Structure formats: C-alpha cells, structure tokens
C-alpha cells in the first residue's frame, strides 16, 4: 500500500473524483491487488477536519456495507432484534461524534481510521447488548409487578450521572460496613445475582443465604430512611 506522502495533488481533487478513485482502489483491494489508500483517507480527512457533508455522504455510501458486515459478524448481534441499517447509521454517528479534529490527526493511515470505525461498530453492538441485558435484569420485576405497580420502561428512567451519583452517595451513608457495601454494589450496580456474588467472594460470603440476608437487612433499613423514601416516591 502506498503511504500518504505527496498529498498535495490529492487535496485539489473534487469530492466526486476522490469518490471515484476511492471506489476503484477498493475494487483493487478486493482483487488482492496493491492499493493506494490516499483517496479514501482524503475523504475521511475532509469529512472530519472540515465537516464536509458531501465527503461524509460519500464515505457512508462506500463503507456502509463493510460496517454492516462487521456488525452481522459480531456474536453480540442478534438478527431481527434491531434494524441493521439503523445500527450502521448509529455507527457512523458515533464515529462522527467521537472523532474530533485532534483525534483524527492521530490516525496515521486509512487502516487506523477504519479500525476506529470498527471500534464504533463494536460499541453500537455493545449498546444494543446492554439494553437487552438491562431489560432482562428487570424482567422478573416487571413480570411480578405486571399492571399493578410501576411499569415504566428503562428508557423512561434515564437519569443524569450526577443524580445517580447523589442517590448512590445517599445509600452509602446508610450502609453499616464493607460487607453490606459489597452486596449492594454487586447486586444493584454490577447486576450480579446472589449466587454469583457468593461465588465471586466465597471468603466473605460462605453461603448464598448470607448474601440474601444482608441484602434484606439493608433494604429494610433503606425503607425506613426518610431521605430515601422521598427518592423512592419520586
């Protein structure tokens, strides 16, 4: 592959001409022939450094099927659960939002740019998996509550980080010791089940019953707390 040296002539090419050369080079890559990546890289440079919408649109057309392949290839992707095209869009959006000019200048080659694009695709798949797990963690609660209690979905409960931190600090003031902290942290923040907590810390918790007991004691205490009562009502 060629280096990015001698870019002076490239920078004067129109977006359309770059698009044509980029597509040709991709074809050559596909045919296992030597390629010149400067044209595709220049399109990325224009899209990121100059926020050139046309260059961005060309890149989307040139690379969306590649991104789509990465996503489908990931074991975290479950076909049918989410629209593939939407995930591809989210990948490009994430790339756009998370690569400011300063970060782009650290990319020394097209391969580095594409590797970061791939990382963004992985992140989008991960976000989807997180939502799935979040829903699954709340499923027993939702099932039990049915229509008789609070039945909001996860998205409606998005709180900003600061509010969550304040809530957690409030809870911490009501915990008696490190052991209680460990149970509450593992159960509510890390999303571990009591058996997993016991298995992870067998020295602290010789039995799973102890985990349940500590959790119950803490919840009873939290229930009596006036300040938390306000939170829970909200």
């Amino acid at each position: 592959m060629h280096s990015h040296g001698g870019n002076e002539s490239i920078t004067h090419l129109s977006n359309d001409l770059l698009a044509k050369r980029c597509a040709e080079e991709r074809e050559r890559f596909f045919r296992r022939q030597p390629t010149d990546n400067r044209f595709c890289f220049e399109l990325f440079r224009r899209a990121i450094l100059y926020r050139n919408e046309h260059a961005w649109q060309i890149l989307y057309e040139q690379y969306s099927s590649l991104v789509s392949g990465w996503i489908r290839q990931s074991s975290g992707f479950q076909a049918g659960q989410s629209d593939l095209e939407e995930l591809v869009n989210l990948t490009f959006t994430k790339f756009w939002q998370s690569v400011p000019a300063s970060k782009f200048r650290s990319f020394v080659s097209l391969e580095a740019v594409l590797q970061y694009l791939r990382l963004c695709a992985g992140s989008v798949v991960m976000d989807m998996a997180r939502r799935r797990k979040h829903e699954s963690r709340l499923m027993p609660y939702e099932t039990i509550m049915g229509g008789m209690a609070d039945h909001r979905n996860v998205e409606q409960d998005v709180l900003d980080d600061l509010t969550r931190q304040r809530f957690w600090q409030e809870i911490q003031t009501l915990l008696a010791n490190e052991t209680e902290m460990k149970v509450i942290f593992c159960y509510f923040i890390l999303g571990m089940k009591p058996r997993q907590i016991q298995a992870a810390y067998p020295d602290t918790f010789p039995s799973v019953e102890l985990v349940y007991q500590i959790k119950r004691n803490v919840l009873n205490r939290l229930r009596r707390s006036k300040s938390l009562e306000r939170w829970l009502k909200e």
Partner: protein
Amino acid sequence: MSSHVDERALEQVLAGEAPPHVEEHVTTCALCRRRAAELATEEAVLIRVLLRMCCPDSLKLGEWVAGLLPESEARNVAHHVTVCPQCQEEAALAREMLHLSTRESSLTVAARKARRLVATLLADESPSLATAPFALRGAPASGRQYQVGSLRITLDLEREAPASYTIFGLIVSEAEDIGHFEGLRVRLEQAPDVEVATTEVDDLDTFVFAHVTPGTYMIEIETGEGVAVIEDLIVGNGQH
C-alpha cells in the same frame, strides 16, 4: 392456601434464582404475588437508578481494549473490569470485533492463500435469468455453476426483501456420495479477509447465507485440500 412463601423466597423470585415450584406459587397466589410486587417496586427503582452506573460507556471500553486510552484512565477501566462480569463479557466482545481479522491473518490467512483454487465459471451451463439480481462481473446471469478440481459448485440467489438476499450453495462431486462435504467451512467475504459471514455445509452438501445485502462478494470453501474460491459475486446491483 396454607404455605405462603417467605420474604427470602420472594427475593429469590426477583433475583431469578427461585426453584420452579416457588415461582409457580407466586404466580398463582394473589397474596404472595402482591407481597412480591411490593418488594419488586422498591428494588426495581434501585436497579433502574444504579444498574451499571460505574461501568465505562461502550466506546470507552472499546478504546480500552484497543489500547487507546491514556494510562490513568486505562488503569481505572482495567480495575473496574476485574470486578464487573458484564464489562468482562463486553470487553471480550470488543476484542472479538477488533481482533478477528488480526487473528485470521496471523493464523490462517497465509495458509489459505497458499492453496487457493479459483473456481471456473461454467458459463455455457448456467441458466440465464436476465432479471435475476445475481450476476458475475461481465456476465448478466444467475444460478451459476463453477468447477474447482473435481468439485462442481452451484450458487443460486433468492430475494428476501428489496435489499436483502439469500445465497444458496450446493457442492457436488461425481466421485463422492451425498453428505461427503458435510461440515466444510464456507466463508462469505466482502474483500480479502473481510469476513461477512461463515457457515458450514450441511448433510445434503448445501450451504446458505441469509440476509446478504447488495454488494460484491467472494465465497471461500475450505475443502481440506485447499480453499476453493469463487470471486466477483455481485449481489443485487452491486451498489451498497
């Protein structure tokens, strides 16, 4: 009913760790269900607010896996990942996503390239379907047959949706019985070493790739004696 379950059992139900008979009781007993719902309401609020509040966002986790974070930040993420099973799973996912091609190139690509057997299109035997969206560069037909050594590979295409297709493949050899090729690995690639999907040949010597979007692809079949390669498959109009 005389045997209502205690609070511990209700907590087990909420944690998803209750024995089936307890779950069944709570489902059918109005009193226990109400008590469980009271507990659930409180715990659900805590879960909604606290769950994964300390986890790095997915992009940061990916950057950590890729070694792109500054040292102090990387140390914090590394410390978190050691205690968080969910982030451990996701880090593995990110590694898979980022290093798949690297792993491929280091372990298998050299060997594969060394024994590539490019399939020859049997042009005169391929049915002509002028409107079919499956074409070989330079030829407008579909339902194609290829020859690689003693193997004959037939490919066909079915449209699932306006921009989604299924590729069907069949491997035949006059010297072998049906089922001989079962288990062979077949890869659909978008460019050299850019794998889109992998599958295995089934007991009828066929293979399938579903949900294929328009574009140009190649198919590689590991035959044991080398890799049979079908190049320049254009699905749809070839435009992404």
